[in-house]
């Protein structure tokens, strides 16, 4: 690990002024969990880390807030996963609480923040390997294609086949969240799905943030009447591990029929992935075990195995089923 200087600015303005002009040299730090890994692996060699946790201005306060607003709920980017998991977010947004409470380990969740979680780099073992130079690192080709690809993408991959690592992003996509971004030109807001970019757009970056831009937080729109949301995940190891696949579902039941259904899949594609066909097939239907079993198969339409990752197809289907059962209180066969 190379030596670096830790800068602790008091205002967002100071932080952004510092960061502009040298993106690889000066980087923001929040909880520092992913950054530390990147430094140790030699994947990032910044001279300065600009700590966002020292911000004391109004932006800093907004980044630490977690509160109801006129139009829903705002969650500041510096909230830790532990804080989100233990927060007073209403049941309609339970998927976010559950996602935050399931990621990583208790000690990591105490440091890791929402902003850092959305912007963490992928876990692909070719990308993370100190001796290997893959497409994502500026090399010629994706080494997972034709290589060891058990954890890689079944949807949306190519030319690079990573899966996006952020668990919170999956819940936020299902909850139709907006991301609030502050750049040199002022604030902007985008749907969370637009924060992420497929490799065919940019093989070396996973998000669309501009230079020096900071995520201030996310807003969750007002919940539909009777909205429920859940998060389901499968891991090889129940703690200290990333998901094999994960699913977040938000829906409401009106007059016995499913409405405003949103289904997001994680760890199956280079970005959080919306299962639009599943949403459409569910809308207007009465919830039932048979329906869920049938529509789950639509979640992976167009999926393609790279060789070792075909199991993700039944796996994510199983998770979609499990999530729907729980969201609609339909008991699973026991």
């Amino acid at each position, binding site marked *: *690990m190379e030596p670096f200087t830790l800068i602790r600015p008091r205002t967002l303005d100071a932080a952004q002024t510092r960061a502009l002009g040298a993106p690889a040299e000066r980087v923001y730090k929040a909880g520092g969990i992913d950054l530390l890994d990147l430094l140790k692996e030699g994947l990032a060699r910044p001279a300065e880390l600009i700590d966002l946790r020292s911000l004391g201005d109004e932006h800093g306060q907004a980044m630490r807030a977690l509160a109801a607003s006129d139009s829903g709920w705002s969650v500041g980017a510096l909230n830790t996963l532990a804080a989100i998991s233990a927060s007073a977010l209403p049941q309609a947004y339970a998927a976010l609480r559950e996602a935050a409470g399931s990621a990583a380990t208790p000690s990591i969740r105490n440091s890791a923040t929402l902003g850092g979680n959305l912007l963490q780099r992928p*876990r692909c*073992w*070719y990308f993370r*390997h*100190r*001796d*290997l130079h893959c497409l994502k690192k500026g090399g010629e080709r994706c*080494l997972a294609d*034709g*290589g*060891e690809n*058990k*954890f890689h993408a079944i949807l949306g991959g190519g030319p690079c086949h990573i899966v996006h690592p952020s668990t919170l992003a999956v819940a936020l996509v299902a909850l139709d969240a907006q991301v609030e971004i502050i750049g040199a030109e002022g604030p902007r807001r985008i749907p969370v799905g637009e924060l992420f970019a497929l490799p065919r757009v940019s093989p070396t970056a996973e998000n669309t943030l501009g230079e020096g831009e900071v995520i201030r937080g996310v807003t969750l729109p007002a919940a539909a009447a009777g909205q429920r949301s859940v998060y389901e995940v*499968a*891991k*090889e*190891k*129940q*703690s*200290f*591990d990333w998901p*094999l696949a994960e699913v977040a579902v938000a829906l409401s039941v009106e007059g016995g029929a499913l409405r405003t259904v949103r289904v997001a899949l994680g760890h199956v594609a280079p970005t959080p992935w919306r299962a639009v066909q599943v949403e459409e097939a569910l809308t207007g239907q009465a919830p039932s075990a048979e329906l869920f079993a049938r529509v789950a198969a639509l979640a992976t339409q167009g999926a393609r195995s790279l060789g*070792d*990752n*075909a*199991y993700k197809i*039944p*796996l994510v289907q*199983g*998770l979609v*089923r*499990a999530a729907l059962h729980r969201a609609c209180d339909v008991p*699973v*066969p*026991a």
Partner: protein
Amino acid sequence: MAGETTIYTLRLGFDDKLKAVKVEVPKGEPRPWDADSELAVIGRDTPRIDSVPKVTGAAQYTHDVRLPGMLHAAVLRSPHPAAEIEHLDVSPALKQPGVRAAIDLVKVGDKVRFAGADVAAVAAKTRDEARAALASIVVRYRPLPFVVDLDEAIQPGSPKVHEKAVKDRRTEGDEPSEGGKARVEGNVRRNPSLSKGSSNKGLRQAKVRHEATYTTQVHTHSALETHSIVVRWDSPKAMTAWCSTQGIFSVRDELAGVFELKPADVKVFTEYMGGGFGAKFGASAPGSRLGWIAGELARKSKAPVSLLLDRHEEHVCTGNRPGSTQRVTLGATTSGELTAIHVVGHGSAGIGTGAGIGNNAFGIYTRCPNILVESRDVFCNTGPGTAFRAPGHPQGAFAIELAIDELALKLGKDPLELRIGHVEHPVRRAQLELGRERFRWAERRREADAKRSRGARYLTGVGVACSIWGDYGRKNAARVTVSVDRDGVVEVRNGVQDIGGGITTVLAMVAAEVFARPVPSIRVQVGNSELGPSVGSGGSQTTSSVAPAARNAAEAVKAELTELAAKLLGRGSTEGLVWGSDGVSEVGGRKRTIAFAELCKKIEGEAVVATASRPQTYNAGPMRHPSAPVYQIAGAHFIEAEVDTWTGVVRVPEVLAIHDVGRVHNPLTTRSQVNGGIALGISYALMEQRIVDRGSGRMLNPNLESYKIIGAAELPKLDIVFTELHTGANSTGAVGIGEPSTIPTAAAIACAVHHAIGRPVRSLPMTPDRVLAAIQGA
């Protein structure tokens, strides 16, 4: 006098099967503890006497050693799985900041045979400087064709890993075996077989056959403390080393050998160590000459050198449990009598040897008259394997036990009854019968079958598997010194290392028992080669080699102190004197007592001191091990597994482990060994797996993040039962537990998963991808 013996009649055996047995022991040996011995300390839960320094951080591990002027070493490792060195120049490293020495570890023209092999090394003032300087070393490699996959390496025409015959590298961690000649063809080396009867004939007689291939992954030791050594030259002919090792004397001997020193001029310390599991014998690691590197850099730089591996290096060059592919063929009569067991095991210990599959298929279901176990090493361009907690056994157990369950299903037989019908060892049989009741075998099986037929999402299954091990306690290897000084201080000294098993505490307990003193009052010194010869901690032989020696030494001191007491009490002999917590008392007559402290004050000179060892095992009853003339240790695990059929995730909610460990000296640390054995077994069964990229030959998960190791969330409810067995094998009755405790776990889980889903998962680890494939019938 040599050859003189004493015969004791001891009550030996287990449960209600105790009987009087005559045991012949060398003269001078105390009467071995048997079923009639009333012990006050041995057999009671005793917390580790060194727990406070461990939990407060005061304990000094090799990683903590800081010597004045000490330098730090770093090793340049080959990025290529196979290459010829065309050019190598370490001199630019000498110009880097902080660097004081640089050495090459290969010569131009040499071949490196795995990614991670030693190439060159430097010593610098800080570890960061040493690592940074490696980049300046100039190496030109000529990459060569390579093979990293076991199945590919077997194919004729695949790149040859070694041009010449390879010498076996055996350590104290390997199970003693009779050895034999090996034949090499391509990358495949045929090792001696285990055979009885005629498996061909047995298969011809069979009415029902089961034949399938089972595979197991490469498993790395992943001790928390990575390999580490600090070397200081005390003179041109003498050195001191601090080393994280399972065998202090193997470190001393290797350093003496490579630097041409007298063993007596090499001092080795291992005050505390953070795990080894079989990979830490000698001063070096199986795939890296750590002892030479640290010693040579220290010699060149004239300063002590510390060499601590990082996690990446630990995974690639310090050994592993070899992977295997085992073809198992079983034959049986329609009534369920096994007529033949035939196993052909191919294993890969990378560039090394020793990928055999243990005694499980050969030594457990011995009512089967025809057994043939063939075993082959397959060379690959990957880091060498080495002994790993019960070498060969977990992989061997997995294949044979799952195959037996599959056969039982074909026969329509209960797999537990099939097993009970084929074991001969009385202890193992009793264990299987005990487990049947205690684990509610039949009831759980029925519940599980019902869930499966209902089509439940979560299915459960129960499985059972056995372990086999030997009492490898060694004669005359550990020389333990016990002293009692005028101040009443009782001290036990031996050069053994405590790798976490808790030998330090057991030594205190033995002395406390003999002298009737409280455990905390006993001083124990270990972890230093100057404290007297000892064994390496391999083969589960530490307690059984060292504790009896300690008892024998303590008894000799006690005898001398008893004489002194008799003299002080004016008695003609020691007859009629007994030791108790008050001191030494007369049984009859005036019932006088001399307090321990008073007695010690009267010691002539400084202290009463005795050094003793232990002789060869005196008894191999009730059943001998099939491959060595020693007592056979039995154990069995009963396991419930739960499978989420929607995700393929397997959980292990409950384990019943029944083990024979001879006399349990400290139940607390013995259970701790079994806890660890089971945790390791679950981890092996469900998640640990080295992934090597077939394209580049590099390990892709050389970390503790994508190389996954069990955590607290996966630990089951554990029920541990010891079949206390009075073996009469040595003066305290200790045998081993460390290794047997991990042997059956993965196998029993595989059987439980098979029962749950009705289909076998024939590859370890049973990760969700494989479980889903099995459920879907792929």
